[in-house]
């Protein structure tokens, strides 16, 4: 942190609770933020207008911030972070407390932003992470436990794929059939409600698709498959696996990176910023 002011200039930060002055109007607040970020005077008002248009708060610009709803406040905070178009935008749980429509809007805004900026997003909502992030870092107990793209993380986790089936027929025949298929790691056969319908769970090795083989094998054994469902490991399971390995996780934080052209550099910047703010 030898040049804190230069470093802070290329970071836009939206904390969990947007840092808003309730006694100002939206326009006043954004002008103040622009002033604070030392945006040249001639560009200031046009940039404020642009940013307000981006987060769709132009029609609220003369309202006092204390009279805005949570969603609008969040958007004003986001506008403040975007202002000045910094290289790195850090968002701490940007969609918490918003309704589904607002969440979709914020997400699409983030998707737009990541075309031009590096967006570092911290979130506990994993569906959101898998929807918008290009690169995921999982931090447990202050330690980085995984960092990869969401797809690669899936491969990383053990016991990756499984098939869940309902098969009609003889239990022993099913057992024999499954044993003869390559790539099957283990399987369980449970009784289902129907008299000769079995609930079969098959765990397979990674990156092997055995669905066709299973189909033909069962057909050969004269055991019709009533239902087959292929289950991939979701980010949730990876997350649980990675963090529970660390014994009783008190606080798990997902740090997610998007649009990482220079991964290492971004990581450094991310850490730098944490030093700076917290």
């Amino acid at each position, binding site marked *: 942190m030898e040049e*804190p*002011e*230069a470093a*802070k*200039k290329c*970071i836009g*930060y939206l*904390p969990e*609770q947007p*840092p*808003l*002055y*309730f*006694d*100002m109007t939206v326009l*006043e607040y954004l002008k*103040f*933020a622009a*002033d*604070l*970020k*030392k945006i040249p005077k001639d560009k200031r008002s046009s940039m404020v207008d642009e940013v307000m248009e981006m987060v769709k708060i132009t029609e609220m610009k003369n309202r006092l911030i204390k009279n805005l709803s949570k969603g609008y406040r969040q958007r004003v905070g986001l506008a*403040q972070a975007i202002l000045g178009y910094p290289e790195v935008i850090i968002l701490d749980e940007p969609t918490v407390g918003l309704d589904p429509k607002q969440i979709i809007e914020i997400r699409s805004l983030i998707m737009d932003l990541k075309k031009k900026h590096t967006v570092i997003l911290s979130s506990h909502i994993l569906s959101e992470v898998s929807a918008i992030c290009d690169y995921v870092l999982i931090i447990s107990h202050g330690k980085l436990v995984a960092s990869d793209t969401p797809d690669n993380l899936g491969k990383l986790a053990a016991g990756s794929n499984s098939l869940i089936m309902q098969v009609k027929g003889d239990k022993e025949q099913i057992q024999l059939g499954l044993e003869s298929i390559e790539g099957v790691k283990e399987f369980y056969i449970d009784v289902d409600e129907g008299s000769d319908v079995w609930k079969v769970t098959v765990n397979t090795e990674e990156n092997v698709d055995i669905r066709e083989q299973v189909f033909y094998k069962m057909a050969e054994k004269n055991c019709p498959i009533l239902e087959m469902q292929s289950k991939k490991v979701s980010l949730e399971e990876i997350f649980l696996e990675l963090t529970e390995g660390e014994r009783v996780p008190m606080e798990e934080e997902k740090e997610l990176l998007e649009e990482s052209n220079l991964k290492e550099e971004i990581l450094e910047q991310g850490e730098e*910023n944490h030093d*700076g*703010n*917290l």
Partner: protein
Amino acid sequence: MTAIYKRELKSYMTSMIGYLFIFFVLILAGIYFSAYQLSAAYPKFEYTLSSMTFVFLIGIPILTMRVLAEERKQKTDQLLLTAPVSVGGIVLGKYLALVTVYAIPMAVLCFYPLIMVKFGEVSLSSAYTAILGFFLLGCANLAIGVFISSITESQVIAAVLTFVILFAFFMMNGISSFFSESSLSTCITFGLLILAMALVLYIMIKNVIISAAVCVIGEGILAAVYVFHSSFFEGGIQKVLEIFNLSSHFENFSKSILDINGIIYFLSVIAICIFLTVQSITKRRWN
């Protein structure tokens, strides 16, 4: 810094608080002015000013309680700390905004001696010296208020604490007269203070050897000085307490002396308080 200064000034001028302060100073000045100058026809404006120094006890806490405490509570300090502005710039911007608010009633007070000129012989230079001293006294009090607002998150605590400290400084003459001026009692008081300091040191660093060493060395030096040069301690407590006696430094100004010592004293109080405020904010960032 200018951005923060402008925002802060605007927020005082769009809320009650700034006007409340101005109202309070002006109404007290008006009451004393009409009593001393207009009714009693006393020609010295400095007399009015020196009798209304207690205005700061209530006015300053009102003005400074929210300046940093509120930022922290609303989490807006995160915006300021992540913006490309130094901590010193933040504090200075806020402090200057407070000084500007305070300068408004002072500017009005500057007209009072001119009114008096209409009715007779008035020494304008001594009146304006007193106004300068009064202004500096207020600025020093504001700096203390800013510092106290930076150490707490609650506006109420900040206000009460500022009041208590300003009140203690205000009553400093009375407080220092409680203590005996004899060298033995001064020496004992300092000895107890060193003991307390060593205890605080122990609580902070949890090291028995270092804090015990500090205690023994401190008491040793104190005892040695007492044995060889006991008159050194005479009135020592009063001398130390005098450092905190803000209003006594104003007294010279009210006796129509342009006291350079006093000016330097007030400026150093301001500088120290701003420095401490910056340090307390920086410290919180690393904790």
